């Protein structure tokens, strides 16, 4: 019920993101960036994946939703060639993940559940390292541009061990964009982030999708899937039990009842409002002084 009520406030946002992507998809609708059929994987006696099927269209944001241990990370690891499936077919950008793993790796980028950054290096050194490993000729120029895009120019020459959680995650994602891979896997990109950093990651994901990058993100936060995804699949007990747009998934439930409730601000609203005010007070003190003079 709570979700359905929330939707009323969020629809404008979610629709905005999906129209932008549909425009980009255009004629390539039949061309899948990722195609998974009959995927199974067991660790010992535990059957983590028991026949997973889904496809992701080029340029779309696809959310894999599931509780802890549902097999989201296992799926991502198989797609990014880190794990071999027991059975099933996995194609990424037209390449079979088992037969042409090297080709798949050239086209993808993985942002794991925990920021995979080298804390003993500076932010800049981290990005340059990835650029060198990807064989990009002007690695330091690429690094400077990405660091600027992610607001890390000032911190670029500091050791990553001094970064905040949000900065580390931004660097982590910046590192994933080196060489502009066409498919990006984001495994729980906002787990463990504060609300502000979480919104920042959401903005980055939306911007990324606007450039035509295909994004597969896993999350256990339902609102994250609602906010970002063009399509949502629910992974439960090793199988995809639902797959579709938010509107399609809503049809699975009986039509929403109309209830009148007072809109209470959530704790997140309050937190963001207060912290944002404090920040702008610092930044715009001069302007406020001017303004109060005018009023006087």
């Amino acid at each position, binding site marked *: 019920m709570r979700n359905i009520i929330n939707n009323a406030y969020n629809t404008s946002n979610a629709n905005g993101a999906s129209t932008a992507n549909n425009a980009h998809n255009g004629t390539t609708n039949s061309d899948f960036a990722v195609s998974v059929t009959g995927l199974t994987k067991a660790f010992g006696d535990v059957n983590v994946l028991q026949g997973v099927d889904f496809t992701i269209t080029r340029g779309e944001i696809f959310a894999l939703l599931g509780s802890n241990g549902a097999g989201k990370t296992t799926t991502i*690891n198989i797609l*990014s*060639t*880190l794990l071999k499936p027991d059975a099933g077919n996995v194609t990424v950008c037209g390449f079979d993940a088992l037969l042409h793993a*090297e080709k798949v*790796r*050239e086209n*993808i*980028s*993985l942002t*794991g*559940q*925990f*920021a*995979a*950054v*080298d*804390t*003993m*290096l500076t932010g800049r*050194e981290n990005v340059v*390292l*990835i650029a*060198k*490993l*990807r*064989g990009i000729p002007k690695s330091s120029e690429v690094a400077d541009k990405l660091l600027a895009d992610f607001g890390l120019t000032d911190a670029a020459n500091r*050791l990553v061990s001094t970064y905040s959680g949000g900065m580390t995650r931004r660097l982590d994602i910046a*590192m994933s964009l080196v060489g502009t891979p066409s498919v990006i896997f984001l495994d729980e990109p906002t787990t463990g982030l504060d609300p502000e950093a979480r919104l920042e990651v959401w903005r980055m994901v939306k911007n990324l999708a606007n450039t035509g990058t295909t994004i597969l993100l896993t999350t256990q936060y339902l609102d994250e899937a609602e906010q970002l995804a063009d399509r949502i699949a629910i992974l439960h007990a090793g199988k995809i039990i639902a797959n579709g747009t938010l509107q399609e998934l809503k049809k699975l439930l009986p039509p929403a009842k109309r209830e009148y409730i007072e809109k209470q601000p959530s704790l997140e609203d309050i937190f963001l409002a207060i912290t944002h005010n404090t920040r702008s007070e610092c930044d715009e003190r001069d302007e406020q002084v001017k303004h109060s003079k005018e009023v006087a």
Partner: protein
Amino acid sequence: MKMLRDTYALFGRLLKHVLRSPDTIITVTIMPVAIMLLFVYVFGGAIETGADNYVNYMLPGILLMSIASGTAYTSVRLFSDREKGLFARFNSMPISRSSLLIAHVLVSIVSGLVTVFIITAIALIMGFRTNAGILQLLTALAVLTLFMFALTWLAVIAGLGAKSVDGASAFSYPLIFLPFISSAFVPTDTMPFAVRVFAEHQPVTSIVDAIRSLLCATPAYNAIWVSIAWCVAISVVGWLVGRRVR
């Protein structure tokens, strides 16, 4: 070509780790140097080795000890790369797969050599002297390097297989103490039978004997070949098991 490029990039990264955390060199150096001071200036007078210069006698054992404690850091570096997801990141990229491990092994050997040079310099101050020729010195260095290589493969197993940082470095403790039950500090013939049998047939004794003979410019070829065989055997086993763990 790509393998060289990737190895070079990853080697540079790990070298920065070593340079930025001087403790990896300092802790590895301090303990063996302290033991060297203790043995030379406290016990040394009472130990009858037949050699007129006790620093000369014990330096090879001290070097092996420092190499063993140095590889604990190799293991910890591997463990943290796996734990932080850096292995996953690198392995999902189009890089040469073997370059990851090769870079770790190379950095392990480079930092081991740095430790060997520092300790040898301190030993020189304490009175270590050698009349070995350049070829004998290089052979001694080669045996030490082979020993580093062998222990690094054990570190790979520990680093990739461990469940915690402590577990990753714990493998080195018995290795650090192995020189005590060898010919490193005292001749083995005063030891009780069972201990002596162990001491005379474990790798440290032959490696110590080999290096000691080289530094005295009287190479004991038998000990040299036996120590090379030990190092190669340990490396092969470590490599085979390490691949599986990975």
